[in-house]
């Protein structure tokens, strides 16, 4: 199906998400949409898939002006969208999830739908059991299910929003093969991503968005530097690596075992010294989050020992870890890190003050102002935290860290932040390292992992690699490991350990 968007505009409050974007995608084409976070990709795709109505502009399908009123309307017209976090029903059986939303009689024919699901799955080499539960699937499998469901509903245009974020390398390869075969059958594929290599590998053409506008288009062969310039509007200078001067031992894991909801980690041992930055890489759900949270006492270990600065902390609670100088910064800032409704000043009082039962409001405000200045947060002590922007919330989290810390654990410290904020935050973190703290962080951004880590731990399906020096590790090698390739080399090392 030929899809054309004409000068689409959409404004949320004061933010112009789409400022007149025009784009035409013919059938049988895999169209890449590149752009930074906040460039307007998602808004544009949500307009096409019926989530939002554009303030201005029109959509043409097969050359005809069409008004899409809802996602259901969109799928009726043949436009299906695969969301980054697949919008499925985890507590349902696959077959129920598959059927839900399809029109038909009062009693859905489960058996027939199951057969059709299997047939479709076989076509693309997927393996989905209709009677299994959705929450037992990996993200990749859930994507597969969604794609099959959309096809079953007659999708002719498939929009994929950041589909490669949470899936393994083999799954990614399978996904790409599927997309290519679908395009070959005449489907229109729109592939939204901020990952250059994926787009370069897969797409027949690329449109780059920046600040709500179409910054340019490109066709193969792609020039990465040109794409980057279009994405950021400038050449990006990344900070220089600074080598750490490892000090005393901060964190030691000995033969640790952890039971997650879906996977187990066994026999993990390693040691982190003061001043070190350790990056944890892996597909989401490969075990890195479990490990990180058990280093904070947030997840119980079922075997082995966890030590913080020579104390055995096995089985202790997070608060005991805190007293040893451990801090944990969750990925979901407003959901887990900050308390909506409380002011910035109150947050500082919460994380710091215990002196006496009463709060000294004036002193608290003064202390807050000082921190706000130091961390360059755009907000006043009396503002509620939810009024802060994402970048400022992350700065706020950093500002809340206690003065004396030995170990800082971070989940996706710069996710969703612009380059400037990212650089600022890493600057602050490196200061902490210089003061003698060790840092463990998880990031989905391999460049970030390589850029800031001294050593890297790669996770794959609950397995952890030995700590690899970041120096001499390439994005490609890292990508392979994350995808489960090249692990044989470690067998000998782990056997020795």
């Amino acid at each position: 199906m030929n899809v054309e968007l004409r000068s689409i505009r959409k404004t949320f409050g004061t933010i112009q998400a789409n400022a007149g974007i025009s784009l035409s995608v013919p059938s049988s084409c895999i169209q890449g949409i590149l752009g930074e976070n906040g460039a307007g990709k998602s808004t544009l795709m949500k307009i096409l898939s019926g989530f939002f109505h554009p303030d201005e502009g029109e959509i043409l399908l097969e050359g005809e002006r069409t008004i899409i009123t809802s996602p259901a309307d969109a799928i009726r017209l043949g436009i299906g969208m695969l969301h980054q976090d697949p919008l499925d029903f985890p507590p349902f059986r696959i077959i129920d999830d598959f059927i839900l939303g399809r029109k038909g009689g009062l009693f859905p024919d489960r058996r027939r739908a199951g057969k059709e699901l299997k047939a479709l799955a076989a076509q693309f080499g997927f393996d989905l059991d209709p009677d299994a539960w959705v929450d037992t699937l990996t993200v990749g499998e859930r994507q597969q299910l969604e794609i099959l469901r959309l096809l079953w509903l007659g999708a002719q245009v498939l929009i994929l929003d950041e589909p490669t974020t949470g899936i393994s390398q083999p799954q990614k390869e399978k996904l790409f093969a599927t997309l290519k075969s679908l395009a070959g059958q005449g489907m229109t594929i729109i592939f939204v991503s901020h990952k250059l290599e994926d787009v370069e590998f897969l797409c027949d053409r690329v449109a780059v968005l920046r600040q709500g506008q179409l910054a340019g288009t490109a066709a193969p062969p792609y020039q990465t530097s040109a794409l980057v310039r279009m994405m950021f509007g400038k050449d990006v200078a990344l900070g220089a690596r600074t080598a750490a001067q490892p000090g005393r031992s901060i964190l030691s894991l000995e033969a640790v075992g952890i039971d997650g909801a879906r996977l187990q980690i066994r026999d993990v041992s390693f040691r982190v010294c003061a001043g070190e930055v350790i990056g944890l890489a892996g597909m989401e759900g490969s075990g890195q989050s479990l490990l990180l949270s058990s280093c904070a006492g947030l997840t119980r270990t079922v075997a082995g020992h966890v030590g913080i600065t020579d104390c055995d902390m096995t089985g202790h609670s997070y608060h005991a870890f805190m007293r040893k100088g451990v801090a944990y910064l969750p990925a979901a800032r407003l959901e887990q890190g900050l308390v909506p409704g409380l002011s910035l000043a109150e947050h500082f009082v919460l994380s710091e003050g215990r002196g006496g039962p009463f709060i000294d409001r004036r002193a608290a405000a003064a202390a807050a102002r000082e921190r706000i200045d130091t961390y360059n947060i755009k907000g006043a002590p009396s503002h509620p935290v939810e009024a802060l922007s994402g970048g400022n919330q992350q700065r706020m989290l950093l500002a809340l860290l206690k003065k004396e810390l030995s170990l800082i654990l971070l989940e996706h410290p710069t996710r969703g932040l612009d380059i400037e904020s990212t650089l600022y935050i890493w600057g602050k973190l490196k200061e902490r390292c210089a003061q003698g703290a060790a840092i463990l962080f998880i990031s989905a951004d391999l460049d970030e992992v390589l850029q800031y880590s001294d050593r890297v731990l790669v996770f794959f399906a609950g397995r952890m690699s030995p700590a690899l020096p970041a120096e001499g590790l390439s994005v490609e090698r890292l990508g392979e490991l994350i995808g489960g390739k090249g692990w044989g080399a470690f067998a000998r090392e782990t056997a020795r350990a």
Partner: protein
Amino acid sequence: MREGSLSRAALRAAAIVLALLLATLVMLAAHAPPLAAYANIVLGAVGSWDVAANVLVAWVPLLLATAGLLITFTAGLWNIGIEGQITLGAVFTTWMLRGLQASSVPPALILACAVVAGMVGGALWAMLAGALKTFGGVNEIFGGLGLNFVASALNLWLIFGPWKRPGVASMSGTVPFPPALWMVTVTPQSRLSISALVIALLGIGLVYGMLRGTHFGLRLKAVGRNEKAAYLLGVPTWQHMMFSFALCGIFAGLAGAIQVTSVYHRLIPSISSGYGYLGLMVAMLANFNAALAAPVALFFAALNVGSIQLPIVLRQDSSLAGVLQGTLVLFVLLAQGVRQKLTGKGAT
């Protein structure tokens, strides 16, 4: 901000007018004269020193229950089990009084022990709901409801069973305690006890100060608004929840103790008098604000006492007071929703 508070006041006023309008309609439907009804409620609440004193008598336990509930609300908990906590407070108070009344302990001391026992009883019952919530994952609404039934059955059983009066076990309750064990009232005939009044005012003041100005209050607020974040920020969350339950239980138990020692002077079947549920309404109408709780509770107490005039003078059922209270809170909630809708702010 100014503008916001102005529109808030306007909407509140509109809500009150609408509530009165609806209540008027209800009265017209029941062939009751609305104006006379309102006039009688007002007169019945402030028409004389005696009725005003009665309003204060009702105000004390209601205010105590509300004060306790503000603590649990701050911690994000719907302590619907407060009815049972009041009952258990009364039961423990009675138990202590029964145990000591024959002893040579000075009455004032017995009274003090009994009040403390009531506080302990309320706290224990509240902590049971709290433990179910924090250690068992049982939603406090349903745990509390269940415990309410258990408490009222326990109370009835005690009154008709082990603690029945020697003559006729009756709905009237246990044998009244000797006047020496009554909380001293303004005049011997009055039920209004200055010490109870002072306790209640002190209680709400304490809660106000605690929630506003202490680290504990702030941490409680953090737990209520985002338990997970509070934990990560270093707040011992389950301890705070348990503590807020216990504190609320203490207030509830105190209300129960005052019901026994200064109002009824014995244990009666429905000793909690619905003050717990009414307290929930007061807290909601006061928008969970301790400073507003006292006047709102006074207003509710006045409605309850004033409405006694309805059957006497107008031969109308006095459940009209409840209708008024209910519509009032309902419309204030609706007005709040309308305001949030207009300003585009989500519910917190």
